[in-house]
Structure formats: C-alpha cells, structure tokens
C-alpha cells in the first residue's frame, strides 16, 4: 500500500511540476489551478474508492482526476487543447472528465458540482447500487448557498454521498477567517444532520483508513458523511508560480506543510530500489503523455459546432 500511495502521490506531483515547467512555453493555453501540496487529499480518499464509485470535483481537479484513475494521456492532451484530450480540447484544465473512471466532472463555478454529486447519488440509490459518490470542493465553496441546500437534501434522502471539503485556508488570496463568521465547517455539516470530522490532509494513510471506515456506513445506506481535510496550497491560486510575494500570506505559513509533505515522507520510507523503480516508471509515463499531447492534432474547425446537442448538431444550431 505504501508503494501504491507513493506512486499515486508522486505521479500527480510530477505531472503538475511538468505542467508548471511547460507553462512558460505557452503551449498550455489554459488556466491551471495546481494541486501541488494538496495531492494527498485526493489520493487518500480515492484509494478507498472502487472503480465504479463516482467523484465530482472543481477547477482544481488534476489530482482528483488522476487519483480516481482518469486517463493521463487524455488529460495532458486536454491541457494542450488537442483533439485527443479528455473533452476533445473543449473543456480544458477546469473541466476534466473521465466517465469510464468515474470522474464525472468539474466546474469553474465554485460550488456547482456539490449539487450534481448529490443528484448522482440519488440515482445510485434509486437503482439500489452500492456505489457511492464523493464530492470534492474547497473551503470557499461552503459559503455558497448550494452547499447547505445540498447538505439538507442529502440528509433528507439518505444519499450515498461523501462530502470532502479540501480546506486549504484560502479562497484565492483571502483567508477563511476573513470570509466565514464562524470558521468551523464541520459544525455546519453537523447542524444539517451529517456526521462530520476534521482530518489532516498530509496524513494519506489516515485519510485512506478513515475514508474506508466511513464508506462502509455510506455504502450500507447510512446516509451522507462529511470530511473536512486540512491542507495547503503551495503554488499560486491559478498558474504555475508562487504567490508569497503578493503579501497576503507568509511563506513561513507554508513551511510546516512542506516539512510534512507526504510525497517526501513516503519516499523516505521506501527502499531505494523500490522508490527508484516507481519514479522511473512515472517519469516515463509522464514524458510519454506530454509527447502524446504534443503529437496529437488540434480539433478540426468543424468541431466548433458539434456536441452542442445529442443529435445532428449543425442542423439544430443553425436554426
């Protein structure tokens, strides 16, 4: 398991570092919201999931997409705007999807997928499936009305949904305490009738174990559950760089998070050989994905007017 978790974490970290590196070349003509520093949340939770479980995320979704098994080539190609991208170049970094892997979408409008996740869970329940849905969102999203509206609906209908709030302390450049009169997100979930607990977003094992336990209840029809996971964003809100120079947060605030980085920690716990093998594999996979993306064609102009509706689109759109 240690090796598996390291592999998953390292793969996301390196992928995003490559994205950041390539970014300067302007070949990724798309905003990127990196998860660097937050990977363990997606990896810890998703490692507890079955392939037929479903996740919904946010524009900061690279880690989630990969942790849930989304296709790497299709993701990098998407960032490059290529026809082989997971949305054919139409959605970009903020709208990754891989239905085969159970990644059912991400939104650039904060909060929206929380409700979509609950609706998906309703469908699972109606079909007597024992799959579950996990809804990932940030601390900022909990300020949107859709958050509490959805909590209420999920409890009312005992939906098989796990809410995971990735609390990185900030919405863009504004600290949680400057946005929330009471900065206790678990208390809010509990008030709506959902069992809620706060976990350490660097403790990937703890996240995995607790998710496994909690999902037993959710899968068995015990209704929704809520995890608030403390984590930290190392890079700027959007883009490849750092943002400490802006002055809204001190670099010192980040240091303990870097010190507790699970990627480094797990690396040090593996044998040198095991680690090297994984790293080499991952590097190769990533290099291949970038090569695949580079080599892929852009979508043909005609694609502008396809997939608007599910039927002959040109005819319809032309009306």
């Amino acid at each position: 398991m240690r090796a598996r978790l390291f592999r998953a974490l390292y793969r996301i970290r390196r992928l995003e570092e490559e994205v950041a590196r390539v970014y300067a070349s302007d070949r990724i003509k798309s905003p990127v919201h990196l998860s660097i520093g937050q990977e363990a949340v997606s990896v810890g939770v998703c490692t507890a999931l079955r392939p037929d479980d479903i996740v919904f995320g946010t524009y900061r979704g690279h880690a989630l997409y990969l942790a849930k098994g989304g296709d790497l080539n299709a993701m990098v190609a998407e960032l490059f705007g290529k026809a082989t991208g997971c949305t054919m170049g139409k959605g970009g970094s903020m709208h990754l999807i891989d239905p085969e892997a159970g990644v059912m979408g991400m939104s650039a409008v904060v909060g929206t997928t929380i409700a979509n996740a609950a609706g998906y869970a309703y469908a699972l329940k109606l079909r007597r499936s024992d799959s579950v849905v996990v809804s990932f969102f940030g601390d900022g999203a909990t300020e949107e009305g859709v958050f509490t509206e959805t909590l209420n609906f999920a409890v009312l209908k005992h939906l098989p949904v796990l809410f995971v709030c990735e609390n990185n302390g900030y919405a863009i450049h504004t600290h949680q305490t400057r946005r929330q009169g009471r900065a206790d997100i678990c208390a809010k979930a509990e008030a709506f009738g959902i069992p809620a607990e706060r976990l350490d977003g660097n403790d990937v094992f703890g996240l995995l174990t607790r998710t496994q336990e909690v999902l037993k209840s959710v899968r068995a029809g015990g209704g929704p559950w809520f995890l608030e996971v403390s984590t930290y964003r190392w890079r700027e809100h959007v883009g490849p760089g750092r943002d400490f120079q802006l002055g809204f947060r001190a670099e010192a605030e980040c240091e303990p998070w870097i010190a507790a980085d699970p990627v480094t920690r797990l690396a040090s716990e593996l044998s040198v050989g095991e680690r090297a093998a994984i790293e080499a594999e991952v590097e190769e996979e990533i290099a291949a994905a970038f090569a695949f993306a580079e080599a892929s064609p852009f979508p043909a102009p005609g694609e502008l007017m396809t997939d608007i509706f599910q039927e002959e689109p040109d005819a319809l759109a032309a009306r």
Partner: protein
Amino acid sequence: MPSPLVKARSTPVRDARPVAERTLSYVDAVREAADQEMSRDPAVLVFGLDVDDPKAIQGTTRGLLEKYGPERVFGTPLSEDAMTGAAIGMALAGLRPVHVHIRMDFLLLAMNQLVNVAAKSRYMYGGRVHVPLVVRSMIGKSWGQGAQHSQGLHGMFMHVPGIKVVAPSTPYDAKGCLAAAVRDNNPVLYVEHRLLHFQKGPVPESAYTVEPGTARITAVGEDVTIVGISYMQVECLRAAKYLEDVGIQAEVIDPIWLSPLDVDTIANSVERTGRLLVVDTAWTNCGAAAEIVARVAERLQGVRDLRLKRMGFAPTTCPTTPALEDLFYPTARTIASAARDLVEDGPTGWVPVERPDLQSIEFKGPF
C-alpha cells in the same frame, strides 16, 4: 379553424394532427404525458416543490405518486439552486428527471445550474455526457400575480446554446411536447401558462411526440402573419376572428418549439403576406419576439418589403391592480388592432368592439 372567407392558396397547411375523438384539458394532457413516459421508462422521475401535495401542481402531477411511488415522484425542499444541480446529477447518471416549478420566476434562482452546467455539459465535456433534463415552469397571469409571479423568461433561455425551449399552447401539443422533451437527450425548458391550463382540446390516448423543427399554422390567411407564443396563441386566434369581421385574413402561427426555432414556416408565411406581427407573453426587448423579427428581417431582406411589429408585456414591471394589469398584456382586441394597422400600413385607430364569444377567460383566485 381556417375561415370560410380564406382566399385560395397553394402552400399546404402544415397542421397534420391526427383527429382525436377524446377531449382533454391541458392539465390532463400534461399529466397523461408524464404518466405514459414514466410507465414507458423507469428512468423518468418527476420532482419539485409541491409536486406530491394535495393540489398536485394544478393537477398536472395528480396520481403519479400513488402509481410510481415516492422515489420517482417527490416534493423537494425550497432549494431551487441545489435541486436543479441535483437534477443535472441525476441526468448525468442516466435518469430522466422532470423538475417542476410552479412559477417561472423561480428559475431565476436556478440560472447558474441551468445555464452554466446543464446547457454546457455536453459540449464542454466533449460529448462524453448528456443531460436529459426537463424543466417544467409556469407563467402566471392576471388576478394580481404581480411583479414576481408573472414573468415569461423563455427569452433568457433562448439566448443560451445547449438548452431547448418549448411552449405548447394546446392540450395536444402539451402532451406531445412533454413526451418529446422527456425523450430528448438534452436539457429542455418546458414553458406552461396558467391560463392555458384551463384549455380543452382533442388529445389522442396513445403516446406520441411533437418534435422540434416544425411550427404549426393554426389559421390560414394571406394578409398578415401573426405569430403567437404560448398563451398569446389563444389571443391571436381570437384576434384573427376580429380581423375576419373587417375582411382581413390573418395567418396565425404557433412556433411551439422556440429553441430550436422553425423560422422557415414563419418566413415563408411572411414572404406571402409581407406583414409580421409577433405576440409574446413576455417582454419584447431581447426576447423571443425580437429574435423572430430579426430572423425574418434578415431572411427576407432583398426579397420583399416588410411590415413588422412586436407585442408583449408592456416594458415595465407587472402591476397587481387590474386597472393597470389589464394594460400590461396584449389582448385579442389590441392584437387585432395592431395587425390591421400593419395591413393598412398606418394607424387606423380601430379597436374591435369586444365580442362576448371572444372574451379572455378570467382567472379567479386564490392562485
């Protein structure tokens, strides 16, 4: 429907509805479509505020709970935003949700999910998902509905690619369009009108669909083309009778589906008549009426000199007092008057004297 005075014409009338023996109210037509679709396809479900309550959305959801159970027919919390988002999630999972709103005004709380998510998902996910969602919503009218319970907002949705809009005006179309909307793999806004709920008309018993793509010519004429949207179709047909009295043959068209819109039928008619009056149950500014006038003007430029006019809500907020509310809406008589002015190419000052057989149905409260 076509008046005996109508002039001979070569173009065939598109109206090819099967003649049905049975007469049904609009309400029952909606209810029957929902029932038939739910029984045909277990993925269909109906929910929204109060769909399962004793009034059953004017009866349009009556009996569904008993027949299909509370998992497929349920009332919701007062949470239009999240419930719309949930409906989208259901649709992504392969269900076919019908989300019901007793007032279209409340859609303003659901715009983010409808416009930013439902309408865009298929495209922005590269065709890998689809959102077979139906949103039923009702336009209120008369009897003091007032500012926030009277809006026809279909124009806002026509503005947005990726969502279809339909506004059936007869029981026949109400049933066929709802079935078509439910079977459509794309989000569809289904617009009802409270005053249409009282309409009765022939409705076949078996299931059928009225698909996008074909407007219906509901009265044949050569002098002026009148397009009536939703409830205004009823008023336009009445207007056509008033016009008959003064020897004007109006061609009346019901677009039925507003998005995608069948411009061909309208433009072909206007090419013959040279005159277009569009009457909506909504504001005209940037509304369906603006779009139809603009399309026809674009289409027929260089082909024929046109006379054009739009009617709709007065460009103000809807007042409650009947003294002003009556002035807020077009009526058969004001429509007839405007149509005649188009035909005579200038203000005639004519407003027909009210005929008792052509009076508007009055809605009596409470709601």
